[in-house]
């Protein structure tokens, strides 16, 4: 029985931050992290990035010390990830903002369109419809965050929340401004265009919700093992035959339908940016799936069936 010694160095300065004596060989990185936290209370485990190589990837919590390529005196490197905030908290703040910001414009607060137009309402029914859809979308997202999503990483860096909120809240304000403007022009093809858009919107929202439920069912018992998602009895999940990340596909579909419904360039721009961002995420996820599973279905594309 050999007990290990672990020394933890700062990844940049290589200064020794701590020396742990008599560490069990089957200790996990999580346990080492807790010991480190006792010595440095301000660096709680979520903030710690422990690695074998100063420029390498972070070690996972479940890694066991004796299975790592280290000698009986292990040298690990520590990097401070900065103050962290929980994913759930972030999502709640990110999604509540657009919900209420839209209302400021919908109800025409005096500081938005001037005193003459304050608290008036639009003669176009599509404007009311747009408000309902927009609010429905963000309320659905809030419900999913609280009840449905299961996150694999607990936290993200605090500075991300400023960046994300600026993006979501800023765009919500910009598009709400034009949709609820007194000089708003309803869609050129009238009721046909609006009805088509509403149906597409509802289908995509239902699809997106189905996928989130299906993904969360994969991790029912709090297990952290990644599994391949498969189509279920729910027809909306049949998109899994063709696409790795159908939740992103449906999300883009929702925003396209909203663009058609409102016929508003800022909404279109937001849709485009969402599409670009989600394609990047989908490609990433797709590559991860391909790497981890040898028998991954070959028909699947990252986000658009057969194309992208």
């Amino acid at each position, binding site marked *: 029985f050999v007990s290990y010694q672990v020394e933890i160095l700062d990844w940049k300065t290589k200064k020794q931050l701590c020396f742990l004596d008599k560490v069990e060989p089957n200790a996990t990185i999580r346990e080492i992290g807790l010991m480190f936290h006792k010595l440095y209370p301000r660096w709680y485990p979520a903030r710690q990035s422990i690695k074998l190589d100063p420029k390498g990837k972070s070690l996972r919590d479940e890694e066991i010390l004796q*299975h790592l390529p280290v000698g009986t005196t292990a040298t690990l490197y520590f990097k401070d990830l900065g103050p962290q905030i929980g994913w759930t908290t972030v999502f709640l703040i990110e999604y509540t903002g657009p919900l209420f910001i839209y209302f400021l414009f919908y109800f025409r607060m005096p500081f938005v369109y001037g005193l003459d137009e304050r608290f008036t309402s639009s003669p176009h029914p599509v404007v009311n419809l747009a408000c309902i859809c927009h609010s429905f979308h963000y309320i659905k997202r809030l419900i999913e965050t609280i009840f449905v999503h299961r996150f694999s990483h607990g936290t993200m860096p605090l500075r991300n929340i400023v960046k994300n909120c600026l993006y979501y809240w800023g765009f919500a304000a910009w598009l709400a401004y034009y949709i609820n403007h007194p000089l708003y022009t309803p869609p050129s093809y009238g009721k046909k265009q609006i009805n088509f858009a509403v149906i597409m919107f509802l289908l995509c929202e239902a699809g997106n919700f189905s996928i989130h439920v299906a993904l969360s069912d994969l991790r029912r018992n709090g297990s952290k093992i990644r599994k391949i998602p498969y189509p279920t009895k729910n027809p909306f999940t049949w998109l899994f035959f063709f696409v790795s990340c159908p939740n992103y596909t449906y999300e883009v579909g929702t925003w396209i339908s909203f663009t058609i419904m409102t016929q508003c360039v800022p909404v279109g721009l937001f849709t485009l940016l969402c599409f670009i961002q989600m394609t990047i995420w989908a490609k990433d996820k797709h590559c991860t799936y391909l790497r981890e599973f040898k028998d991954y279905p070959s028909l699947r594309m990252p986000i658009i069936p057969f194309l992208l």
Partner: protein
Amino acid sequence: AQGHGAKGDNIYEFQIEFLEPVEPKPVYKVTQRQLNITVQKKESNWWERLTKQEKRWLDESDAEMELKEKEEEKINKMKIESRVPKDPFKHLKKGYLIMYNLVQFLGFSWIFVNMTVRLFILGKDSFYDTFHTIADMMYFCQTLALMEIVNSLIGLVRSPLIPAVVQIFGRNFILFVVLGSLEEMQSKPVVFFIFYFWSIIELFRYPYYMLSCIGIEWKPLTWLRYTTWIPLYPLGALAEAVCIVQSIPIFSETGKFSLGLPNPLNVTIQFSFLLQIYLIALFLGVFVNFRHLYKQRKQHLGPKKRKMK
């Protein structure tokens, strides 16, 4: 034997057939760094060699021989690969590039000479109708400059694509959009300075390219091409910035290229606002480009040779 080594826990083993019999129980000593195994001979006498087989243990001179062989292989491989296939269009491409650079050089020389002569004859008054006399040639040269993007794109020229695109786009935006569409801007003095700075820089750039196509390097020209931009490029950018600042109120008033509500796209475009953003981008771009050009200068002019006393 089970050991904990650099690659983690593993089982290690090896076999040696000794020349003559040995005692069956070797002694082991394990340290942090190595494993010592002591084996005793059954009979105490001199062994010609350690093992039954003739196979020599590798020593240092063997290692050197291996290295030499590997290097020779590498050199042979490189020789075969570097025999590039002959390009049948080589002369055609060179001819086209020389013609392109020559035409541009002539165009900008005409502009420069014309502006200088008018400056001497008319003095300050030449500022006000610079655009009127020079614009057509400048339109021609700058439109032709789009070929530089094509050349870089198809790999005819080795220079990188993005700086070329940024430069061409920037200049043509000023020329066609800001100056070309507003009559009021065309009679402003800043036009003189913009055109003058642009043409002086090109007077050095295009001949340098022409000569490098033929394969000649005239050191004074190289020096000029990689040094004159240091004052001229920022000055040119300054003139462009002044031009934009002067044009913003005009675009605001006339509403040119702007879209107001109501419109079926439900968006407002304020061109004057976009110009303000462009101004910020201009300064950032100049800063980035300056560093890039400075690096290029160092590469081409080489380190300065110290004078021996």
